């Protein structure tokens, strides 16, 4: 229920600052100031709801999803008022506004392990398609990997490095997060011989 208090003189107009999003059914009680006689009745009232700065609220309301970098939602931060940008309320509002971007938490951009490189040389078009099929302990590595034109490998989950080879990349992966790559179970007498007969 929205309760508004206000007063107006000369006519029945009332101007108060409110912040409201949603559908409102209005029942007004009009008290003519000149008489002091209270007249209760239902009426149709045109209401314009404004935000705190008295700007029409339509742009800020509604379920439209914003995207980081979308200039339609840019409100440049005043460097002298950073304090206002670092409140818990602002944190909550940002999470609500950028729900589209937050989906990336669960769906990081997936380009697989295929890279298409292209270059031009003496008027010729060069196209190189490189695909990797990587496993560690028989389990696939599926994060996004790309190959640069210099032939180095960049793995998106290790963002500060490029590697001379995919093998180096996987070694680094194991080094960085050993808890994600538990020690393999002992493979017994036959495991490490790659088809070679056991020796006695």
């Amino acid at each position, binding site marked *: 229920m929205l309760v508004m208090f206000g007063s107006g003189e000369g006519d029945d107009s009332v101007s108060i600052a409110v912040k409201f999003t949603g559908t409102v059914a209005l029942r007004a009680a009009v008290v003519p100031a000149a008489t002091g006689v209270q007249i209760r009745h239902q009426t149709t009232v045109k209401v314009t709801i404004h935000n705190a700065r008295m700007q029409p609220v339509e742009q800020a309301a509604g379920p439209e999803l914003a995207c980081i970098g979308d200039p339609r939602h840019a409100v440049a931060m005043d460097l002298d008022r950073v304090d206002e*940008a670092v409140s818990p*309320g602002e944190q909550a509002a940002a999470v609500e506004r950028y729900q589209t971007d937050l989906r990336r938490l669960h769906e990081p951009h997936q380009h697989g392990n295929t890279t298409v490189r292209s270059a031009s040389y003496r008027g010729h078009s060069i196209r190189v398609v490189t695909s990797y099929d990587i496993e560690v302990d028989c389990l696939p590595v599926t994060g996004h990997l790309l190959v640069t034109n210099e032939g180095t490998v960049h793995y998106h989950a290790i963002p500060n490095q490029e590697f001379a080879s995919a093998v180096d990349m996987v070694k680094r992966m194991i080094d960085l997060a050993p808890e994600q790559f538990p020690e393999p179970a002992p493979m017994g007498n036959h495991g490490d011989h790659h088809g070679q007969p056991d020796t006695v």
Partner: protein
Amino acid sequence: MAVIRPNILADDAARAKFGQGVKLLKQDFAAGVTTQTLAFSGPAFPVSTYDQFVIWHFVAMNTPTPENAPNPRGRNAAHRGSVFLPWHRFMLLLFEGHLQRILMDPTFGLPYWDWAADGDLDPPDQSNSGLWMDTGIGGDGSVNSGPFAFIADDLQSFRLHFYQDLRTGQFMYDQAGRALFRQLGSADSLPKTAEVIDALQSQTSYDSSDWDSASPGFRNVVEGWSYSPPTAGSGLHNRVHVWIGGDMGPGTSPNDPAFYLNHCNVDRIWESWMTSYGRLYEPGPMLPDAPAGHRLNDTIASLITTATTSPEQMLNVGSRYSYDTLPAF
């Protein structure tokens, strides 16, 4: 009011306040953000202000720029492109602001770690810096002592809840949490002062086409994809991530408070460059090959606030902070 950002190894009070503030932000749930708000399935667990910064960084890293025609070298909304320096300056401004709020100290300036000074030491000695002591930000391996110590039965102790699965690249949540993990010096040595000076002296332009990880220019040398002179491995900023290792490796690297100390020093080096060459930024808005998200007037948004900024606005932030000293060259 402009604050002074100090050298963390030269200011005991700043070091103590940084540790105190980070721990408070780890326990700050006032925004009401939960795992359900972030579209994780299952019960709703509160997400701290500190962890919301981790999430923002991960999301930016997973936002190709431009999105409809991804750069073949993996440029994203915060890295491997021109916006790298202003994007992280914005992040540090907001982080510093939250530290000021939670510490109730508007004079607090985010400290920086002059990693090049430690890089001038012999590699075996680099991890013996005071930064990695219990009186600093804790040490090597699983961090079980110092301000960010993990204590299994103390829910107030520092613990990681969000991490990246390296096999799949997926963002993961672990309600129980675990200790911060570092591998100091296991894969590289720290950059040296001479490398910082060389970047400042030799790179007279900010960036250049194709505005990615192969572009000549100051931004790319400082970010660490191109090297001057060419050296093996990663360059300045990147090499600090590699040198610390562990949780500084994946896209969730803001999990380690050392992330902010590294980037504050990167920002300080950038400020030194602009002091000498002017507050220059490329690409401008009209260049036909300039990628959206990296141009001078493009919007930089945040998952921390609805306020936004732009590279242009980040070029001069003297009204907010300055550094006690800038790298001289």
